[in-house]
């Protein structure tokens, strides 16, 4: 599988996690922000990154991996440069997200959960982006797109080289 080589957590990330630990009463409380720090550094949460977070927080690796697997915004596999997340929950489904997902799939040549061969996009479906009033909602990286129709998709993809 392509993607960044597995490596331990860098010194900068470790220092940032150490800073985060100081902000909370319990070490466990720093787990989510620490996971984001590790993911920013590596692009995804490799087994080594999770082990690094566990060591920095003095938590069992199993607990760190368990928490990371619970949240959709943590990636346990390498992802593309841009991550497209299409909501498929109730409001979005009623407003036609299926067509949006299908159009993304055709346009990128990947199924949900897969990354394009050039490593540019990863397509995922998610449950609820908390934007039901703007259904169907799509999140690309950290940008939220409202009322997306299949026709919008070509233009949308062009914005993310």
């Amino acid at each position, binding site marked *: 599988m392509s993607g960044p080589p597995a490596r331990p957590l860098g010194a900068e990330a470790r220092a940032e996690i150490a800073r985060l630990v100081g902000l909370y009463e319990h070490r466990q409380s720093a787990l989510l922000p620490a996971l984001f720090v590790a993911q920013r550094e590596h692009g995804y949460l490799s087994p080594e990154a999770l082990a690094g977070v566990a060591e920095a927080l003095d938590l069992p690796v199993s*607990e760190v991996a368990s928490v990371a697997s619970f949240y959709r915004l943590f990636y346990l596999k390498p992802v593309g440069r841009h991550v497209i997340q299409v909501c498929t929950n109730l409001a979005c489904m009623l407003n036609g997200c299926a067509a949006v997902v299908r159009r993304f799939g055709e346009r990128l040549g990947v199924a949900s959960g897969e990354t394009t061969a050039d490593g540019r996009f990863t397509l995922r479906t998610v449950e609820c982006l908390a934007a039901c009033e703007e259904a169907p909602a799509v999140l690309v990286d950290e940008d939220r797109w409202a009322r997306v129709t299949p026709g919008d998709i070509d233009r949308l993809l062009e914005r993310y080289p």
Partner: protein
Amino acid sequence: MATDPAVRTVTLTIDGRAVTVPPGTTVYQAARAAGIEIPIFCYHDRMPPLGACRMCLVKVDRMGKLQTSCTLPAADGMVVSTTDPEVVAGQEAILEFLLINHPLDCPICDKGGECPLQDQTFRWGPGRSRFVEAKRDFAKPVSLGPVLTLDRERCILCWRCVRFGEIIAGDDALKGFERGFTSEINTPFTLPVESKFIGNTIAICPVGALTSRTYRFRARPWDNEPVPSTCTHCGLGCAVWFDVRGGEIVRTRAREAPAVNDIWLCDLGFFGHDYVASGERLTAPLVRRDGRLTQASWEEALDLVASRLRAARDRAPGRVAFLGGRRLSNEDALVAARLFGEVIGTPHRDHRVDAPPGGASLEVAWGLRAPLEEIARGDVFLLVGCDVTEEYPILWLRMKAAVDRGAALLLLHARRLEVRRHARWERLVRADRLAAETGALADALERGAAGPPPGLEAAVAAIAAGRRVHVVVGRFALDGPGGSAVLAAAVRIAEHSGGVLHVARGKGNDIGAQRFGLLPGAGGWPAPEILRRAAAGDLDVLYVAGSDPATAVTDRSAWDAARRGVGFLVVHEAFLSATAEAADVVLPSLVLPEKDGTVTNLEGRTLPLRAAVRGPGAARGDREIFSLIAARLGALFTYGTGDELFEALRAATPGVEAGAILPVAPVPARLAGDVPAGAVAAGAGGGSAELILATIDHLFTQGATTGRCRGITALAGAPHCLIHPDDAARLGVEPGALVELATGHGAVVLQARVTDVTAPGQVLLPRGFDAVSAYALVRWPHAVVAVTVRPLVAAAAGGAP
């Protein structure tokens, strides 16, 4: 019943019956106390309630919805129904829901026949399901290491196994992953599970999601005849059931014993029984003829042994010596002591085969000085050179319970312990610094207000504040350099804190051997001296039973010299061990799961053994062999039944009662060899001692017995040593590469594990791997030697160097 006004109670009505319970009791517990059954899955009485499975629904008056009785505290005047039609409908609905994704593959599931989900579906289930859609589909079965099989489709997500890892064992081995519909129990990345207690999760899993790989498909519960006995691996004497099918132990289960193992076992206990049924068991006596061991009849072998013993005795009784006892029962030890002490009259008997000369192991009686239940109430645990989970796993469960209630765990060792996450203070030192560090801790405590040296503050504060301090000294500390100094310092710490000093030393039935006469008599030699005298030609017959000195003696060359020097070596063995291979006569003996009798655990508690299976071929029990030899020497031991023998034990040692503790001898207040920390033996070429070698204990090993247990052998992995990353980088040792460890006395080749579990400047070598003898590298009187590490280029990567 006497009523104490201070103790308030609550009275509630369950199914029309008034039940009175202490406050804080849950409705479920109250119902159970009253004999009313409520079905449960997630609740387990050794763990706090969770309320995950919803199976225990009850109806409570004036509460709108059905309540989960396992999480609902009983209150005065509460009116509860467990049989209301609403409750029945609720329970049926929950079971129908739990079964939605359950594959119902009971015919091929190992839990079938002893499965709470099966039983409760039968009793409380709806009988049919409305769910016709496709069930959740997982890859199965998934192997999580050598002993555990995971089937996620069967899992009902009760979290018992996860909570066991968090609350009871503290190893967090299994966790929940993903969420919602895709939730699953697993290890991170489905890697082999890392735990010493995982067998317990198999036992408490209420469905067939976690099953044993070694027991897989071997029997149904109705095939098995359970035999209550005692586990004889680590020496804590956990109560077990041996499940026997067709004359073979197919699995071991924990038997409830609140004072010892409660309801738990370690994985060595769970999976360490295969050796009994090994095809390599000795089935006939072997006698050396023309330099080769050949099969002989019992008559011939016993006559030969008796004649050599008689000849030696006639020369001088002291020309016979006896070694061993760890794998003997109390009764065996008693009869052996009578044979050698009374009939032959030699004082040279010792079970402490793996104790080095000059080590503190020979200065003090082995064993715990307080019951396990009292240890569980401790508030400070100082472990000096004792790797509790590797040596006495069930002892750790007691400590874990106390640590969760706020007790302080203090660790002082030459290796990092896997329980260090639970420790308040940890000190990792090189083996040759252990004595100095323990001494410094004792000094700091005694100085009190003067202020402890840096690094010791937390430990000193914890011990000073402790009211029930337990100091545990392990084999590593006792037998390491300056073992006497460690022991002396530990005595000072225990005395200063008013605590208890435990000598965590002894495996199998060592304590029983110590108690029933397998210790040097008046003028007798301890084990190392027996070996030295044997090498010097002072012995005619060396008799070994219940031990394998060739692998256990901590200096291989000392054993080899003893073997060469002694005229006649008799060995009781179940396998053709290294000792048996060198013997003149090998008598095939039974192993402990094949014996009736008793053993003594580390607390000094007398525990029952019951023969689960018959021995192979012509193998005989050790005490029977001793009696037959005694008869040939003119002494008739007339022990009829096991009861008579137990009476003899009680007569020999007043205070011995079945199941009760008779404390081991107290630790002497002043110790003989209170010497400063010993120096390390010089290295191979007289070089600088920059790397030292020390042997450590592992729970999973590859010895004569453990090497013949499939699960244990696989858990142990390849023989390996532990090297610190700094040393590995300096020496060019890659993780997992083969290295040659060489001392002036020998060399071994094994795998290097690069880890900061060991201190810099120190290579740790697990003992108990017979293929790679740690003790070939050691030469007495030094327990720790300088070592050179040479990385070997892997053959595949360009030929041998």
